[in-house]
């Protein structure tokens, strides 16, 4: 349960020196993708931060998000943060089970009503009254609605909680929905990814600890610090793309030379995430560096995008009408060729139409 000690006191008790604390703050700032110049301010605030209660609900999910977090490559910082927060309920990580676990959740809610942070991973089945996933006799839908009422803010971890995820894949048999489709009266931050990069999870928690508020977000509710730029723009293979050097198969000369994977279906140009810089497995690599294109797992409906190995193809919806209207609007507005191409890209992204290398190239040159 929560106590009244500040983070500074908590760390000092554990024998962390002031220099160690500054190092912790430097790592935290880096986690949060904040400018290093903010380290002293972070130190000052963190020093006096109070221990918050966190309730973590796992719904229709595979536990990959928790695996991601617990396999995180910066154990010192994350363990300090997680030792510091009061993780009052988490199916997978808590020792209690059954009624004792549910009592812990109810006690934490009562004690911290209006102040606790709710973390959700997994989508919420809504069809047939939500019977497809239940915990302790409650449907996920009921539990989310009940716990969300007393939350200060909600963090949707993983693409399932953020956008419905794999359970929502066509034909969505359970009526899976994102948290934001059910809870509409609380601040929600989405940390998508299948799984999300652990530093994005801990970075948001660290920011909440530091500043007491959620970070700046994009139009899909994702923190800009981690999802502000697309994989393509941050990819070290970008110079090959610029030179028009592409791998055509996974074992041709281009693949062996590490050329751009766009033609093999890489979704880097339409995927916003921090994999290219934060990387995985102790900062070793990320999918593109390992020779496989990005599958776009932090974008909505990525599984219905027409195939991981097709160049930026995406599902068919009411795309045709949208593109025609958009092109007409762009032409009517007299937009420059580059702007029209950008328009095409946006529409293709939104409507999941095939996008060709040449279109991206025209945009780059305009």
């Amino acid at each position, binding site marked *: 349960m929560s106590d009244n000690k500040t983070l500074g006191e908590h760390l000092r008790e554990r024998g*962390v*020196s*002031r*220099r*160690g604390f*500054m*190092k*912790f703050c*430097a*790592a935290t*700032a*880096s986690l949060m*993708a904040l*400018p*290093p*110049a903010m*380290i002293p301010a972070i130190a000052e605030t963190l020093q006096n931060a109070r221990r918050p209660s966190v309730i973590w609900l796992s719904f229709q999910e595979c536990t990959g998000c928790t695996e991601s977090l617990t396999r995180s*490559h*910066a*154990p*010192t*910082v994350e363990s300090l943060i997680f030792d510091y927060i009061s993780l009052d309920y988490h199916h997978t990580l808590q020792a209690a089970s059954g009624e004792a676990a549910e009592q812990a959740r109810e006690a934490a809610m009562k004690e911290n009503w209006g102040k606790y942070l709710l973390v959700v991973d997994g989508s919420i089945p809504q069809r047939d009254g939500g019977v497809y996933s239940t915990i302790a006799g409650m449907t996920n839908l009921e539990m989310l609605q009940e716990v969300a009422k007393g939350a200060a803010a909600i963090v949707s971890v993983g693409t399932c909680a953020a956008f419905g995820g794999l359970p929502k894949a066509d034909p969505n048999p359970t009526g899976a929905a994102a948290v934001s489709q059910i809870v509409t009266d609380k601040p929600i931050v989405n940390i998508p990814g299948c799984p999300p990069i652990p530093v994005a999870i801990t970075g948001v928690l660290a920011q909440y600890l530091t500043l007491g508020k959620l970070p700046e977000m994009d139009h899909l509710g994702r923190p800009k610090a981690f999802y502000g730029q697309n994989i393509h723009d*941050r*990819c*070290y*293979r*970008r*110079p*090959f793309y610029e030179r028009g050097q592409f791998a055509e198969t996974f074992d041709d000369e281009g693949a062996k*030379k*590490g050329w751009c994977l766009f033609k093999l279906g890489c979704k880097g140009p339409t995927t916003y995430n921090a994999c*290219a*810089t*934060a990387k995985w497995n*102790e*900062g070793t690599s990320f999918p593109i*560096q390992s020779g496989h294109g990005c599958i776009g797992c932090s974008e909505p409906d990525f599984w219905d995008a027409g195939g991981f190995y097709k160049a930026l193809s995406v599902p068919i919806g009411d795309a045709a009408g949208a593109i025609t209207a958009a092109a007409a609007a762009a032409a009517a507005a007299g937009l420059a060729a580059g702007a029209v191409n950008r328009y095409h890209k946006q529409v293709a992204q939104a409507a999941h139409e095939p996008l060709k290398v040449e279109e991206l190239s025209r945009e780059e040159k305009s």
Partner: protein
Amino acid sequence: MIRIGNIPVAVVDGSGNQAFTGNITPILHEIRHALTRLADSGEPTTIDLSGIPFAPGERDALLERLGQGEIQATLQALGESRLYETAYPGVWVVIHKSPQDIELTAHIEVTRVPALLTTPLDDVREAADALAADLAEPTEQESA
């Protein structure tokens, strides 16, 4: 039966024919501007290398280009940190590692001395108190 040793594996030198992002030169220019700023106004600059996309081997190439200067130090707190001045005075490399020896952050600090090397004032005050308390205790010789 296929044995793992029979799988042809070739180790590729990351610094070989890989394409670099072209980020080294802009960073060096950023450092140059930061040095001018430090000299003119005393304002320090920190560059977080973790947020910059590098091709395999590219960051090492950057650090190699900056070289090694006269001072290096290690900090033992929550794992080891290495701080050293590069061949360009005023340009420091600060690398923090966890107790498991995993790199947490890598910064380039353009400053006269990295803040972590200076003793925190609260530590100085506590040191004065601790030494005073120590002196107040009679030594073994004095007790004898």
